[in-house]
């Protein structure tokens, strides 16, 4: 009697072929994106979304082409923070145009579609059983978004991930080995413990862990013009990945985020400088990854022209702009 693998196809639907086609559409849609960076944590409430948006802003200010996909479908916040809550999705000749912030960052967020008073709901034939299918549905939705929107030529596409260590790994599986991860924690042992689980889980897969950012690393007191401690937990959990920087909490930053205002005016504050520092570290890390990959490819295939290496460098889309050549100052580290 024939067994499963003796039979070609499934007799009509071609489900596996459809899944493969979905993956091809996603790959094709992202073909012009140089770096895929997922910003995750495992822990909720550590500032992943805020950091994602402001790192994107810092990178955009250097002339890089950046977009954000708010992958937190159930708790989207990028639409509000980026000021694209009222965006209209306009169809192009083949795909859907991506809403953009005033400074040119492309943003997809469910928050552009769903009022904050509403939750994302899916119709279902299996009421009360959403735990059996909901994650699958959300990833199918993510695939449809990746395949249907005009991502175009980007230096970075940043994914703002939802909380949950297991979700972080699921996104790594779905997005594939091209995607590098940046993790966010806060100086709390509880948070670091959860992030350590994400590090352990991600370390088992092929995705590159760029490092972590310690957010809310003290708070910036404008009256004192100083950074003061916010958490007093002793740091005993070693995350075993590079720290790309620390970012203090600034109530003014939170206020601007709620109102969807550009952070250019914060650029000269300790928070702005810290974000610039992290952005530089992120770029350095991505460059080293790219260079190492290109070098490895060169070693494996010595017949390949050396120019392939140079073509992978991040380049601003506004050559000669002031932003592109601006010197970056190191962020102010919170003294411990």
């Amino acid at each position, binding site marked *: *009697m*024939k067994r*499963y693998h003796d*039979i*070609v*196809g*499934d*007799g*009509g*639907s*071609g*489900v596996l072929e*459809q*899944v493969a086609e*979905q993956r091809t559409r996603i790959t094709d849609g992202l073909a012009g994106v140089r770096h895929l960076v997922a910003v995750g944590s495992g822990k909720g409430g550590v500032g992943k979304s805020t950091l994602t948006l402001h790192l994107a802003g810092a990178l955009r200010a250097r002339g890089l082409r950046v977009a954000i996909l708010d992958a937190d479908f159930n708790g989207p916040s990028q639409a509000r923070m980026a000021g694209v809550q009222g*965006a*209209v*999705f*306009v*169809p*192009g*000749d*083949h*795909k*859907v*145009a*991506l*809403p*953009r912030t*005033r400074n040119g960052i492309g943003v997809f967020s469910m928050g552009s*579609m*769903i*009022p904050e008073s*509403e939750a*994302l*709901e*899916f*119709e*279902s*034939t*299996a009421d009360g*059983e959403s735990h*059996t*299918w*909901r994650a*699958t*549905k959300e990833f*199918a*939705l993510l*695939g*449809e*978004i990746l395949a*249907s929107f005009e991502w175009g030529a980007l230096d970075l596409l940043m994914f703002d991930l939802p909380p949950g260590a297991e979700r972080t790994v699921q996104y790594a599986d779905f997005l594939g080995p091209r995607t590098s991860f940046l993790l966010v924690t806060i100086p709390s042992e509880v948070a670091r413990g959860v992030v350590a689980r994400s590090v352990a889980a991600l370390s088992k897969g092929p995705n590159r862990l760029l490092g972590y950012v310690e957010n809310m690393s003290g708070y910036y007191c404008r009256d004192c013009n100083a950074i003061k401690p916010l958490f007093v937990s002793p740091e005993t959990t070693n995350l075993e990945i590079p720290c790309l920087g620390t970012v203090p909490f600034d109530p003014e930053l939170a206020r601007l985020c709620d109102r969807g205002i550009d952070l250019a005016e914060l650029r000269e504050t300790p928070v702005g400088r810290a974000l610039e520092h992290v952005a530089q570290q992120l770029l350095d890390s991505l460059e080293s990854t790219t260079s190492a990959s290109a070098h490895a490819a060169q070693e494996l295939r010595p017949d390949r022209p050396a120019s392939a290496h140079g073509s992978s460098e991040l380049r601003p889309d506004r050559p000669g702009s002031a932003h592109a050549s601006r010197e970056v100052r190191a962020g102010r580290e919170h003294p411990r």
Partner: protein
Amino acid sequence: MKFLCIPCDSPMKLQAVGPPEGGSLSVVYSCPECGYEMAMLTNAYETQIVQSLGVRIGPDIGAGASSTGSTSAAEPTKCPFSAMLPPATPKPLGEGGETEGARPGQAGEPIPVRWTAAAEARLANVPEFVRPMARTGIERFARERGALEVDEKILDAAREFFGM
């Protein structure tokens, strides 16, 4: 999932997908050797799990296979699930744009806006879950400019206006 006719040791071929009913699909297979037919009947949980994958169950009519049921007759390339299960759409922004024109301080129904065939074709590029919202937003954009028809020029203008 594959089905095998044991007496013939032959893979069965999908023949038809019955109209979805009560969360269940009826998918008919037959053996190309002996003609024996059988039906796979899904329960609501099985239906939902497969639907969540975003795949089409049933023959691709565009490829020449046959199907039954009003679903596939009306929209030949779509999965029967599509008619049975509305796409993932935020309820307040569902098809029909019922929230459009019903804002506080405004009275009456919104003025109907036509879509040219070319504009509709472009709208088809929008994923189903976004389409109702995209339609509503573009129609509002058109009305605000005194246009009662959405054509490609309006779409291009909207694209420009929203900074895309």
